[in-house]
Structures are given as C-alpha cells and as structure tokens.
C-alpha cells in the first residue's frame, strides 16, 4: 500500500481521509512495514466500506488486513439502525462464524513427547478433515432446525461435551435470534452430513505447546503455564454457511438499487437493517453462527475422544471459543452516549475488555481471551481484550497473520511432501490427505503473525498473553 495516501494519527494508527462518497474516514492499525506489505486493495475496499449508509465513526482495518470480498479480511464496521444502517452479507463473508477454540489438556510437553506420533494418528482418525469428509452425525429436518437454533447448547444436549463448555463460548454457545426457516433447503442439504467436520483450506486442528508467557497475571486467569499443552481448532459453519453467503450475497447485490443503495463494489452487497431482506439475512446468518458453534463443539468432543485413546481420564476444559465473520448487535459508547450498533467483523475477533457484562465471570476482571491462529509451522497467540479496544475499533482485534502469497504462487514455490518433511525435522507432525493442500498453506505463504500480534498489542486492540508453538497439525 502507498503510505503517501494515508495520514498518520499515531505510531500504530493511519487514516484514509474521507474522499469521494466516503461518509466517514477509514482507519488502519499498522506500522509502516505492515502497511507496505498490505494490498493496495485494502485501501480501496476499506474506502468503499466507508461509503455504506449508517456507518458509524470509521471503517477499520486490523493489522492482518488483506484483500477480501467487498470488505477487506480484517475489516470492522459498525452500523446504526436508527441512521439507515445496513447489514452486509459481503461484510460477513462466506464462512459465517469461522473461528478458533482452544482446549486445555492438563498435559505438559514431557507427557506428550513420547506419544506424539500416536496422538497425531488418533486425532487424524477421529477428526473428519478435508474435502469429501463427512461426520458421523446425519441431521434430519427436525434436528437441523434444533441445531440452527441451539448452537453449541444443542450439541451439548446431544452428548457432545459438557455444560461447563458453554460458559467459555461467545454468546454462551447459542446465538439468539436465529431463524432456521430463513435458511434455504439447499443450505440445509449441504450441511446434513457435515456436522463435526473440519473443512479444508486454512482450517486445522493443532496440538500446541505454551512456549512463552507475556502477561503472567492474565495467563493465570486463563489457566496457561509454560510447557502446557493445548489443542486449538480453526473451522466454521461449513456448507451451510457457504450457501447462506452465496444466496444472500447475490440477492442483496441485485436488490440494493431498490433500497437506493449505491454499491461501489457488488461484493459489498447489503440491505437496510430494518428491511425485510436485512432481517431475513440476520436470522439466517445467526443460524449460521449456531451451526459453526455446534460444529466446533462436536469437534471438541471428538478431540477429547481421540486424546482419551492415549491419555484416558483427562479433564480437558475449554479455554474459550471466538468467532470471526459475524455481524452482532452490541452496545457501544459513541460520543459519551450508549448506542446499539450492528458490528461487522470480517476476519476480525471480538476483544471485549475488563468488566464487560457479556463475559463469563472467570474472565470479567481481565477481559476476553482473543485466540489468534498461526499456520502449521508458525506460532499462534493468545491475547486478552483491553479497555482501550472499545475506543480503538469497537472492541475488535486481528484474527491471524493474513496471506502474504497466493495459493497459486505457494503451490509453485513449495512441494507438500518436502514441507511435511521439513516441519517434521522441526518436531512438527503434519497430517493431511492432500499434499497440494499443504503446499498452498505453507507457513511462509502467510505474513509474520508475530509482527501482526505485536502491532495489535502496541495499538491497544488487545494485550499479548501467551505464544503457542505447533507440535501436531491436522490439516483440513
């Protein structure tokens, strides 16, 4: 990105002043090196987001921002329903509520080191991963509706996990306001065999060692100690979410003129929050969130079963589950006044600070865990929401590193088999059914997640708590 187009607000914050049809400025949290590596498309897309009706304060980009669809990935925007605000299928994306959850194991590196290959094998056997994989659960119409309204709460009722898990999931495991009837028969058809599956692309399950602690007092609250083993899963709402995205994106793009919305890019497809289409999408999208929460809950159960084949009788409590790719109604303070706003986070994580009423009691003193995924060979990070984040970007933080290289380039640069061997020599076991899939997800095809996380910390978006190193990765 060309820095000359930006005004620097402070060390970590840059502004695109309003130009053209922008209603508000656009703000990017980054430093000069991160900005220089950022696609020029982020500038264009974020400026476009700032033209949408009812946008509040600014369109924001997180330090991992990159070229997305309509919204940049790493884009955050709030819309006021009282000011003609919109809800955008493009601003949520195709993988509704894709997110990360992390589970404690109670094990240490010393416990698992001798058993690593067996553990990798067990996880690979238990976790359905990659294109064409199906879950063991096949939902009929009634169960599908119950799942779409119940989310992880439904999954726990079906025996996947324990009630204590629900406390450690955003929305306590169930997104209210879901409308299963707004989800098409096709979307349900696409999902009926996919519950409890990981998916493909950048989705994974990873066994990780806590390698470094940055904030011991918060790590204590999160239950993290150096050399402890945790397991993180990155996946989303699978075929159901993809189909909801596909259908509503087209419908919103085609009907925008009817609502007098001028779309600078059809991927910004949106509808007024108070319109029938806006409300219909909101209900369907919330059902998509529940699908993702249920999916990650079932995967958690399978993970526990897999680990139990090697380490029986472990207690494996959930640390937390966070979603990206959502639009949520939240109360935020604008110019000293509390307002109910619809916050789009496209490839961004919620990062509520200390004292937020929606947080479970255990985290309320310190803030929400923010789980930042790595990419097979690179570190992942756990951060904590900060009080400053509310003023910086409606309590939002980054979600990962962001791609530095296209899939096409990556598959030309690396061979999957060689990568798997190289990572094995570093003590990281990769299990995948597709070597081309591994090549496309090569760790160096992503930006430096450490630099992104440092910036998020310096910018006050979230506070660094711990760094995790990968030991086993089941690739989707």
């Amino acid at each position: 990105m060309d820095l000359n187009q930006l005004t620097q607000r402070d060390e970590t914050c840059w502004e695109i002043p309003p130009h053209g049809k922008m209603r508000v400025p656009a703000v990017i949290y980054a430093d000069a090196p991160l900005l220089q590596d950022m696609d020029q498309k982020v500038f264009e897309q974020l400026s476009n987001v700032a033209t949408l009706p009812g946008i509040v304060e600014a369109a924001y980009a997180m330090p991992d921002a990159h070229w997305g669809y309509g919204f940049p990935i790493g884009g955050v925007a709030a819309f006021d329903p009282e000011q003609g605000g919109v809800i955008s299928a493009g601003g949520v994306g195709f993988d509704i509520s894709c997110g990360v959850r992390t589970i404690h194991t109670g094990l240490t590196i010393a416990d698992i080191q001798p058993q690593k290959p067996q553990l990798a094998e067990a996880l690979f056997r238990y976790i359905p991963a990659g294109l064409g994989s199906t879950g063991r659960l096949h939902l009929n119409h009634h169960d599908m509706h119950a799942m779409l309204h119940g989310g992880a709460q439904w999954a726990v009722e079906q025996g996947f996990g324990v009630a204590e898990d629900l406390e450690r999931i955003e929305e306590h495991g169930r997104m209210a306001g879901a409308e299963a009837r707004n989800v098409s028969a096709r979307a349900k058809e696409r999902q009926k065999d996919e519950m409890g599956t990981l998916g493909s692309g950048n989705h994974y399950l990873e066994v990780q060692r806590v390698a470094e602690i940055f904030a011991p007092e918060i790590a204590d609250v999160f239950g993290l100690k150096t050399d402890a083993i945790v397991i993180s899963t990155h996946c989303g709402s699978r075929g159901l979410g993809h189909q909801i995205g596909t259908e509503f994106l087209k419908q919103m793009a085609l009907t925008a003129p009817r609502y007098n919305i001028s779309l600078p890019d059809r991927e910004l497809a949106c509808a007024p929050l108070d319109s029938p289409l806006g409300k219909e999408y909101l209900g369907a999208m919330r059902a998509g969130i529940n699908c993702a929460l249920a999916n990650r809950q079932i995967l958690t159960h399978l993970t526990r079963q897999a680990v139990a084949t090697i380490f029986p009788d472990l207690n494996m409590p959930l640390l937390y589950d966070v979603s990206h790719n959502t639009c949520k109604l939240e109360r935020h303070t604008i110019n000293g006044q509390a307002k109910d706003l619809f916050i789009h986070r496209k490839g961004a994580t919620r990062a509520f600070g200390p004292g937020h009423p929606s947080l479970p009691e255990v985290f309320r003193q310190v803030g929400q865990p923010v789980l930042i995924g790595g990419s097979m060979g690179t570190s992942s990070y756990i951060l904590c929401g900060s009080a400053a984040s509310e003023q910086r970007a409606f309590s939002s933080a980054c979600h990962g590193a962001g791609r530095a290289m296209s899939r096409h380039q990556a598959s030309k640069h690396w061979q999957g088999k060689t990568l798997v061997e190289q990572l094995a020599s570093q003590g990281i076991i990769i299990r995948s059914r597709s070597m081309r899939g591994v090549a496309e997800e090569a760790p160096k095809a992503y930006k430096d997640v450490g630099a992104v996380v440092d910036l998020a910390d310096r910018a006050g978006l979230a506070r660094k708590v711990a760094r995790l190193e990968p030991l086993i990765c089941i690739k989707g």
Partner: protein
Amino acid sequence: MPWEHFEHAADIGIRGIDATLSQAFAQAAIAMTAVITDPGRVAATHSFAIHCSAEDNEILFLDWINELVYAMAVHKLLFNHYQVDIIENRLSAVAFGEPLDRQKHQPAVEIKGATFTELFVGQRPDGLWIAQCIVDV
C-alpha cells in the same frame, strides 16, 4: 489451454477462454475442477444435468459455478468436462464426472462459492469469449 487460473491474495481466479460463450463457461468450469484436483484424474462415468437462468451473462456465470459447487458438495461428485448450451440467458448443461474418491483424487481444497470479485463475461478484441471470477476456498 482454453482455461487458466489467475492470482488472488487469499483465493484463486478461474477463467475460461473459448470461441463461444457456452464453451467459455465449460472451460471455466474445468478451471474450477482444477482448483480442487487435477481434472485428468477424474473419469467421466456419471453425468449430471444443470439448468439455470439469470438476468445477464455475468450473473448466469455466477449461478453456473455455484450450481456446480452445490452439486459437488451434496452429491460428492467431481467433474472433468461439461457440455454447455446457452440461449438468451438460459443455460442447460451436462457435467460429466465421477464420485469423489479421496485416495484417487487427492482433493486439495473445497470451494465455498463463486464471488463477484473479478467477475467478467465478455468478448476479447480477437472475438474469443472470456468467463471468469474468483472462487472462495
């Protein structure tokens, strides 16, 4: 080759280039298969009919690719070639392929949907038709 991939930071572009609109659509669909697996690994033992219509050629292309994504996902199929007929924004096609075999096809990635990004259907100055868009993977 009458189909190709093109660059996108996170995902991948599919493009068909051929003498007619219908053939460009068919070639772009092979490019889509090639995102998932080598089309040469797929045999044509099954056929699958697809029909759609739309207000313009670009939306029709989006619908065509999304119909294929849906058919592949629900019926667990992979396609290696396509017979496409387009008359006045109405598409009738047959996709030829076989059931997905994870050992044989080694699928790299699943396609979530076709997007409006880089969506273009039109004729080049040399008369060849292009049909393209980015697919989200």
